[in-house]
């Protein structure tokens, strides 16, 4: 088997198709057609990047998910078609003990890093320990870890304090990618307990990568671009594109324009309102797929000015006063769904939870019952940004209009993301609006972040109480599997929905827009876009 000539042929065909497509669309732009004989066509992706670091154990962002997936590999991966199916990655097989506290992975002996050295158990141990010890934003993913054993070079045993049936899903998260420990340590990285203060490899990772993924990092210019080159030592199926550039294009309209001109192959954040501009353009393919992302408002009674929200009837009334269908229309031009609880559609436990519905009279009656017939005023501080096509500013203005109908005055205070984060870390705000995208494919993350449990992420510090029911149910879910676990997650979803601290607003669909000769563009639940899967269709 000789893959090289085949690839060349495929590229020729692609050139021909692209030429025809361009001619058909009458958007004749010579620059859009790759040079037919010499050089490889680079893949160019346009994206508003939320990158602050490229260190795989320090970063925590959507763009990080995409890049880490291209540069590093995980022990296991998730089947995009069925998120409950775990597929082999660096580990060819794995098993868990009966109570899900100990997980054994057997590494694939073919797996090598980009410098040709084999992927060994010591690298896995080092990478996981570094993730924990750097105490970065993603360190919580390995909370409760008690030890990692490496009986031989191909076997890793990870043990936890409490049952953790979510671990296989967590292991597939891009933040748990395996790093070549020898190379990283030579360049200042450390996995020791004091890594948070002694590790100084963050700068090195901005220009280099040390993984076993299909690509390696060649260049990064902050605010401009990230450049990747195919990993010549890659042990899996060789990626089709030999070089990939991810380009910083901040707004949706510029992304659209560059895609139309053929300057970029994939535009990642096209707004639904711009979709009509692409209709009938044969050189560009668009697909609308369901996502697990959503925007929500959180009602936080313990924040100053949040007193009326202590009454669950008030929170329920606010939920009923929002015109959800109008919201989906206004925010994402109808390309979105409603969601019943903080566990998004498609995750375990979400299926049978009732969707929120608009009931103005019901909302008024509930407010009257709670003693707020004359209404009250709430202030809402939220980050001023567009998340997955949803402009939070617009969402809050629409909700403001809806709440005015039941006499609730919402004062809007949009701020920068960093300012919002410091408000949430400080005195808080009675109402806020944010977005959430999954880190992995297990529902536990939603209870850990949105549940009213001790040490809960967003909600618990502001409720003034802890729900013992939710705490117990979460521990129960993590020790269960299969249908039992689904049932427990559903009970949790219903309990969180009844609490009404977090009201999901819109679950936007994702718009994939790309040059029609590119294949493999798909939304991956763990990793957003898998660059290694992209190719030219012919």
């Amino acid at each position, binding site marked *: 088997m000789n893959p090289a000539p085949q690839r060349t042929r495929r590229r020729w065909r692609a050139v021909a198709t692209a030429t025809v497509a361009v001619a058909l669309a009458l958007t004749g732009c010579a620059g859009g057609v790759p040079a037919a004989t010499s050089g490889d066509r680079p893949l160019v992706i346009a994206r508003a990047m939320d990158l602050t670091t490229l260190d795989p154990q320090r970063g925590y962002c959507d763009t990080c998910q995409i890049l880490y997936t291209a540069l590093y590999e995980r022990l296991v991966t998730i089947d995009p078609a069925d998120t409950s199916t775990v597929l082999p990655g660096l580990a060819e097989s794995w098993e868990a003990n009966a109570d899900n506290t100990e997980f054994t992975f057997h590494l694939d002996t073919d797996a090598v890093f980009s410098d040709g050295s084999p992927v060994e158990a010591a690298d896995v141990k080092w990478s996981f320990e570094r993730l924990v010890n750097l105490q970065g934003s993603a360190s919580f993913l390995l909370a409760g870890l008690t030890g990692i054993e490496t009986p031989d070079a191909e076997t890793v045993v990870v043990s936890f304090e409490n049952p953790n049936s979510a671990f296989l899903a967590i292991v597939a998260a891009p933040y748990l990618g395996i790093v070549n420990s020898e190379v990283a340590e030579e360049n200042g990285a450390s996995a020791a307990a004091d890594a948070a203060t002694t590790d100084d490899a963050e700068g090195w990772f901005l220009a280099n990568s040390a993984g076993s993924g299909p690509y390696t990092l060649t260049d990064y210019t902050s605010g401009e671009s990230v450049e990747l080159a195919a990993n010549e030592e890659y042990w899996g199926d060789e990626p089709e594109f030999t070089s990939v550039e991810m380009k910083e294009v901040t707004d949706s309209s510029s992304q659209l324009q560059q895609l139309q001109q053929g300057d970029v192959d994939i535009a990642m954040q096209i707004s639904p309102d711009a979709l009509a*501009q692409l209709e009938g353009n044969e050189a560009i393919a668009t697909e609308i797929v369901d996502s697990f992302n959503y925007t929500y408002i959180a009602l936080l009674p313990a924040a100053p000015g949040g007193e009326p929200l202590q009454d669950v009837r008030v929170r329920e009334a606010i939920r009923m006063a929002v015109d959800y269908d109008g919201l989906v229309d206004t925010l994402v031009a109808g390309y979105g769904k409603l969601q019943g609880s903080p566990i998004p559609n498609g995750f375990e436990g979400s299926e049978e939870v009732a969707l929120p519905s608009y009931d103005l009279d019901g909302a008024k009656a509930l407010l009257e019952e709670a003693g707020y017939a004359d209404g009250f005023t709430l202030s809402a501080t939220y980050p001023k940004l567009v998340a997955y096509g949803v402009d939070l*500013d617009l969402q809050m203005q629409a909700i403001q209009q809806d709440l005015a109908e039941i006499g609730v005055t919402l004062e809007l205070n949009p701020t920068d993301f960093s300012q919002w984060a410091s408000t949430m870390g400080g005195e808080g705000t009675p109402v806020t609006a944010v977005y959430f995208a999954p880190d992995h494919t297990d529902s536990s993350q939603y209870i850990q972040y949105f549940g009213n449990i001790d040490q809960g992420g967003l909600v618990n510090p502001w409720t003034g109480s802890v729900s013992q029911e939710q705490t117990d149910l979460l521990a129960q879910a993590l020790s269960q599997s299969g249908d039992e676990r689904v049932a427990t997650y559903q009970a949790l979803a219903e309990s969180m929905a009844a609490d009404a601290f977090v009201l999901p607003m819109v679950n936007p669909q994702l718009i994939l827009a790309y040059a029609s000769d590119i294949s493999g563009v798909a939304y991956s639940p763990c990793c957003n876009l898998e660059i290694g899967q992209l190719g030219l269709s012919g």
Partner: protein
Amino acid sequence: MTAASGIAGFGTTSIAALRSVRSSAWMRPQMVFGYVIVAFWLVLVVSVQWIAPFDPLASVGQRLSPPSAAHWFGTDALGRDVLSRALYGARYSLPIALVSIVASVLVGSVLGAVAGYVGGLVDAIIMRIADITMSFPAILLAMAVAAALGPGLDNAGVAIIIVWWPIYARLMRGQVLSIKEREHVESAVAIGASRSRILFRHIIPHASTPTLVNATMDLGQIVLLVASLSFLGLGALPPTPEWGAMITEGAKNFYQPWIAAAPGLAIVSIVLAINFIGDGLRDALDVKARR
């Protein structure tokens, strides 16, 4: 042209000719145009609730619909009438600009007059602070101050006063320095008038003309600055129909240009009108000064 003939007329020395120059200088076509536009917006500030076709905060139509008979400037992303919002915008931009300019003039003039009249260390301290403030580009400093105070139109006004007062301090100081050497001031000193009486009764009234002209010219710039701060998210908070904030919304909806068109036209018209008036005023008052 009236203006040209007016200036030619100034060459003759008869009183009648001079009077005709003065009256026509106040009524040059571009100034009249300015008066009409400014009057239009001032009328709106007072009575927009009877003039605007729709409630500026309510969703009254299909979202993002292009200009039509019902909505002359279309609707925005929430289905609000863009024309009504732009008309209501006058209620926010103009008062805040007026208050900011008056406050800047008051603060700047008093500090500048004191600096010029008292001199010495007081002069040095006040004018160095003014120099430091002026060494920053106005928009940058205003952004920094507004960001520190937090968003809101009131805070934007405060930021503008902080940025703008040194201009008037400098202007007034220069005037005071030259006027305090005049004979009428010296005679006031001779008859024993108090220092504050001399400053406020004998100097400042003579020094106010350039300040007045400058303030008129600056008013347009301040309308722009308010809009710029709101455009950057440091001014009006949603859903306030402020012009700069509306243009931000328009920029987000790149393919619906009408959303930004109405507030854009509003800003252009008011700034242009104020500049016309300011220009004319400068010419007209120059004549008086030269006389």
